[in-house]
């Protein structure tokens, strides 16, 4: 694995970016120079150090004098939390529903697959907006929204795998020896879906990060006082004339993070599942 | 006067890939006369398909590096620009492939795919192109050709598609037809029909044919001259009767012993010992020496020269002066 990572330069970049963001999220309270919510109106709308600011606030300050660097660092927390738990929840829901659909077949399968179809043709931003609007602003709700908008892929994966395992003749053989169905499915399916599921999860995370940012931008994400990149951007856009960096920096943070996750996902796909690679 | 149509001189094809350098064809020489049927025979990976694809220039370069000369009526095809080469392909020289099931574009009708050849190569109206396509379908013995013209590939069987491929390749009456294992993917009865068809077309149109195959049965039924290939080298070249009666190269001998025959039924078949070396890692000397039952010291150091035996040739030290040198 390590060797493959060293060979793939883009994969290495992706993994490093992801590790950096995770590190920032875990240690935000240690590495951030200021409290991200501390206001300092005397020093508001300061430019970053490379655009005429000073080293007290390396990335400048926002309209309330809050330190942008600290807010970017703390912002990574929500990004990582939502991406991580959203993906896990989506994986759990998807796997369960996919397994039920594949295992029981018939009308259960038909109903679940129709829901999958509907969801696939429905824009997930819209779905997220709708659910967020109904459930209200909270971290828990954003995670639920993330999960609802991405469980479908896992459900299809698991269902497809169960159906193909059901078709195989050796399953009949094992069953005739008296093995239990659930055991058969677990033993034979998990090894087959683990690689594509990891790839799916990684690429799905990139999507979730973008979605969380969009929701925060629209003010429908986590409560407004928690710093998030999407929220910073939407606040910063109103001060484009005095300090454009307020809108530029959080966007760079989002783009780089999503890029890192995508690069890591592409590499994982090549590494875990060479046959998927074109 | 010389009636040679195609002459291949010192053809070398090397593939440069990340796994290394593979010499797929090494110093191939042969020529094809008008109306002649030449068989290129060998196992998969012996370079026979690479030769055929180099002639019509279908090999992507890179990774393939081609050197030597391929002279069609005196014109070296390897020197032509891609644009000029288009004029030759499908017109003076055409090709049929191994898998008729995947050789036709699924989205276009047979008629469309046939007519586009004529429209490309000849100043011709659509109507004329259509009637000539129908006529050619009739020539290759396809029933109700007018209906076929409107059909899509998926509506036709493999044997039918191969006939269509043959019709398509003959539309412009090419000088040379390269047939790359045209019968391998087909049922035995269809195989025989296709071979009959190719023989008839050769007779009627005088088209020279290069038949590429690993099937000695096909060789026996069709061609008049055979070139046997092993690891990118043409190891023996002779009229078809001579190959079967008096094989000179140890590999040819092995090949013939490995096919079952009526007279010897009951006797064990002789497989050639050992396996084909990798093209990325060919041994020094004769490429066949690790499987050859006559191997001597001399075979280890040099690639054997091609020895002319009058009307046939062979690349083996047995037929050189070096064979008897004391070891």
């Amino acid at each position, binding site marked *: 694995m390590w060797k493959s990572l060293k060979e793939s330069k883009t994969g290495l970049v992706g993994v490093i970016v992801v590790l950096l963001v995770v590190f920032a999220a875990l240690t935000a309270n240690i590495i951030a120079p200021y409290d991200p919510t501390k206001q300092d109106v005397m020093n508001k709308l300061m430019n970053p150090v490379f655009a005429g600011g000073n080293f007290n606030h390396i990335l400048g300050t926002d309209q309330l004098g809050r330190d942008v660097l600290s807010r970017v660092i703390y912002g990574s927390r929500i990004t990582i939390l939502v991406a991580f738990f959203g993906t896990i929840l989506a994986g759990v829901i998807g796997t369960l529903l996919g397994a039920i659909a594949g295992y029981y077949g018939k009308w259960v399968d038909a109903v679940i697959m129709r829901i999958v179809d509907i969801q696939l043709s429905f*824009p997930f931003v819209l779905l997220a907006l709708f659910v967020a609007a109904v459930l209200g602003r909270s971290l828990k709700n954003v995670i639920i929204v993330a999960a609802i908008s991405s469980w479908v892929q896992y459900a299809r994966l698991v269902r497809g795998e169960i159906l193909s395992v059901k078709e195989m003749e050796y399953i009949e053989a094992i069953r005739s020896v008296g093995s239990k169905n659930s055991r058969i499915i677990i033993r034979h399916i998990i090894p087959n879906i683990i690689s594509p599921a990891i790839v799916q999860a990684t690429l799905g995370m990139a999507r979730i990060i973008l979605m969380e940012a969009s929701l925060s931008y629209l003010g429908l994400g986590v409560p407004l006082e928690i710093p998030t990149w999407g929220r910073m951007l939407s606040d910063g856009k109103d001060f484009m004339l005095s300090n454009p960096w307020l809108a530029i920096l959080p966007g760079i943070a989002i783009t780089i993070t999503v890029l890192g996750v995508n690069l890591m996902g592409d590499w994982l796909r090549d590494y875990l599942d060479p046959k998927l690679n074109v | 006067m010389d009636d040679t149509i195609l002459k291949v001189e010192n053809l070398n094809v090397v593939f440069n890939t990340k796994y290394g350098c593979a010499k797929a064809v090494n110093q191939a020489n042969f020529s094809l006369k008008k109306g002649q049927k030449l068989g290129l025979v060998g196992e998969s990976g012996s370079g026979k398909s690479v030769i055929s694809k180099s002639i019509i220039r279908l090999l992507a370069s890179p990774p393939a590096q081609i050197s030597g000369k391929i002279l069609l009526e005196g014109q070296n095809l390897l020197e032509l620009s891609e644009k000029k080469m288009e004029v030759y392909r499908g017109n003076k020289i055409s090709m049929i492939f191994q898998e008729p099931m995947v050789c036709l574009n699924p989205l276009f009708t047979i008629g469309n795919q046939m007519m586009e*050849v004529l429209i490309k190569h000849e100043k011709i109206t659509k109507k004329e192109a259509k009637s000539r396509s129908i006529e050619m379908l009739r020539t290759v013995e396809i029933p109700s050709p007018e209906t076929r013209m409107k059909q899509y590939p998926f509506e036709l069987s493999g044997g039918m598609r191969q006939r269509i491929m043959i019709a398509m390749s003959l539309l412009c009456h090419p000088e040379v037809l390269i047939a790359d294992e045209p019968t391998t993917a087909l049922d035995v009865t269809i195989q025989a029909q296709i071979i009959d068809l190719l023989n008839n077309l050769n007779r009627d149109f005088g088209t020279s044919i290069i038949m590429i195959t690993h099937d000695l049965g096909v060789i026996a039924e069709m061609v008049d001259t055979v070139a046997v290939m092993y690891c990118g080298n043409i190891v023996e070249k002779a009229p078809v009767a001579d190959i079967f009666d008096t094989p000179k190269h140890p590999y040819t001998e092995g090949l013939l012993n490995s096919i079952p025959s009526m007279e010897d039924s009951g006797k064990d078949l002789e497989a050639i010992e050992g396996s084909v070396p990798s093209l990325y890692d060919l041994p020094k000397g004769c490429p066949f020496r690790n499987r050859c039952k006559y191997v001597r010291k001399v075979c280890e150091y040099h690639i054997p020269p091609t020895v002319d035996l009058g009307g046939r040739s062979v690349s083996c030290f047995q037929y050189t002066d070096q064979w008897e040198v004391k070891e």
Partner: protein
Amino acid sequence: MGMAKYLGKRFIQSIIAVFGITIIVFIVLNIAGDPVKLMLPDTASYQEIEEMRQKMGYNDPLIVQYLRFLGNALRGDFGTSYKYNEPALQIVLERIPATVTLAVSSMMIALVIGIPAGMISAVKRNSITDTVIRSLALLGQCVPAFWLGIMMMLLFAVKLKWLPTSGFDTWSSLLMPSLTLGVFTAATITRMLRSSMIEILGKEYIDVAKAKGLGRYVIIIKHAFKNALSSVMTVIGLQFSSLLGGAVITETVFAWPGIGRLLVQSIENSDFMVVEIIVIFMAFAIVIINFIVDILYCLINPRIKLQ
């Protein structure tokens, strides 16, 4: 005929999908909040609220309410917007042209960029051009649309003063929003088309086309592209759905007077009747577009057309 049967099946599926969406929307909105409380002043007594509930039919079983909702909807009655105090449908209908303009022009941009880029990238596989196109396409999928929009505003409107920052009057005001919205789709089409073209270019019938002496462009466009398109087509259909979703954000960024922005505003105002119509309308639009894509897919695929 096979095509009619196939399309008939898809049509029934589409109808089921639309019904499914109305049910989901209806249930979620019912969980979401009590519309009666929103309609009456805060000072209303419990009894007043109950009376209103009874009058409006909110105490009926959910299934009765749903059927009534459906019946009204079929007659074009979607209730009244609390915020504007007008028929909700009319408010939404007024905003639809703006969104359609934006979605169509974004799709145009995405196709005009994505198709040639994907083709060039595949044909010149592993060249520098390919690397550049692939990197840009990857970036296009990673950049959040709203940020891209803001960056464009910053550059073209604030710094260079070439284009207006917002508005809905001239084609130049359409340019930035459509670009913003089209970039992600363009990037997706580029990547899909590239991999699909590479797969097709490796097929035997492409070798055959070359052996027939056909020119490079005939091979790429007639033989390869049409085949690649048939597999990319369904993706383009799905892209329309993400385009409509993206419109919500893009319209908010550029203050574009379409239904996306109206949706966000209505959510903020708890104007649920309007939300309901917009969500159903978008779902409907997506289902119809996918159905059209299905028809086109059938038309270029002789297998389905004839079987």
